[in-house]
């Protein structure tokens, strides 16, 4: 799969391969949100992990035309941020997990946009429910200003209202920042709402099913 965009792609992967899967090619334009589905076990999570450089992979991956190897691993992962299905929290309080240089005001805005009161930043992490952790893990990632979001079934465990909030926050972030997202989900309605491209993952290739608005306004 090879697409051309007016501004050039933001993230591009060519012949990306890991273990016996691939090679996959993929490119994400600024402001695009790609919905990714595929049968369980086909390797969607592994694809995200390979793109985030958490697992080793073969092939060429670029961000803004620069090769992955030209970034230090922390730089790369901050720009190509993976949000795993099950987030981990290791410090005592929520705010301990935010970027060291985060702006209080922005953090509170994001938290409220996700449907919380801003005092949740001071909460003990043991008080958080699974759904709260999911939404806060998005906040935590966005405060680090990523250019590409790799969302692994984030929002799948949420009720309709909170899922919609989350989608709005991601959509707004992409529009404001010019970033792109690759969102793994098994929920067709959810993908219908957020995705501008639909990708189905197979063992040996990625298949584009439908393209909505590739040329963003």
């Amino acid at each position, binding site marked *: 799969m090879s697409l051309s965009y007016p501004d050039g792609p933001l993230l591009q992967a060519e012949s990306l391969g890991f273990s016996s899967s691939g090679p996959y090619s993929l490119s994400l334009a600024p402001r695009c949100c790609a919905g990714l589905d595929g049968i369980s076990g086909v390797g969607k999570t592994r694809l995200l992990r390979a793109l985030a450089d958490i697992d080793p992979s073969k092939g060429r991956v670029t961000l803004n035309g620069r090769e992955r190897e030209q970034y230090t*691993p922390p730089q790369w992962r*901050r720009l190509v941020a993976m949000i795993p299905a099950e987030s981990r929290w290791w410090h005592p309080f929520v705010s301990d997990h935010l970027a060291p240089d985060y702006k209080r005001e922005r953090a509170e805005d994001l938290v409220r946009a996700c449907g919380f009161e801003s005092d949740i930043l001071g909460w003990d992490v043991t008080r958080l429910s699974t759904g709260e952790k999911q939404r806060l893990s998005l906040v935590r990632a966005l405060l680090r200003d990523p250019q590409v979001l790799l969302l692994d079934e984030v929002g799948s465990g949420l009720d309709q209202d909170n899922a919609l909030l989350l989608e709005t926050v991601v959509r707004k972030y992409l529009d404001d920042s010019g970033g792109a997202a690759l969102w793994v989900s098994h929920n067709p309605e959810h993908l219908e709402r957020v995705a501008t491209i639909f990708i189905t993952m197979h063992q040996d290739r990625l298949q584009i099913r439908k393209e909505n608005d590739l040329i963003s306004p």
Partner: protein
Amino acid sequence: MNVAALSPLDLSIAASLILLLAGLSFNLKLGLESQLIIASVRMVVQLLLIGLVLQFLFSTSSVWLIILVSQVMLLAAGREVRARLKRKLRGFFGYHVGITSMFVSSFSVALLALLVILRQDPWYEPRYSIPFLGMLLGNTMTGVALASDRLTSLFYEQKEVIEQRLMLGESRSEAVSDIRRDCMRTGMIPLVNSMAATGLVSLPGMMTGQILGGTPPIEAVKYQILIMFLIGAGSGFGVICAIVMIEKHLFDDRQRLVLDKLLPEE
């Protein structure tokens, strides 16, 4: 020095206490008797052997022989560190990290003590060098092994947390900073505790031995202080060395966690 020489009869009286304990354990079905007896027999044989070796070493004073013996001691300590890990490191690296950190914790510190502090003629005087090395190896090994064991276990148990932190753009070193601190504590706390209790709760074996051998207590105490400092510093350096080596080994050049370098738990 006039030590009251022990006759075989004296030792057998002490041994009969162990036999009594074994009998009691058998009667009460505590299941300790066979282990206890095997360990006692091993202890006697090993100590008699090392007694003979030491006696031989002291009489020859050959530097090559002392180097050989010290190498064997070092290799054995390195091997022992690896053996104490629940999750062992795959391949030669497991021995490499054990031997290197024991070298740092004991060998280098013992050399420093011999050359700079004790200044015997010759510097390798076996009456000093071998007991010093042995004492350092024995006492720092526990800390190094505890810290390494905790490190490999925590890397395995906290894989998701480490990877989550990497995903948030933390460096390898930031992502494991809490684990590193935990392991340093684990390795050093027993030693710090024993330093605090020394003289108050416990009289160290070496000091007691010297006093029994007729050394004035204050001289024995000075030696004990020296050895405690050396053990403390050596343990710390050895633990840091093991932590740094293992940590570096379990990440690849792109700071990705590589846990298949660990063998499954035994």
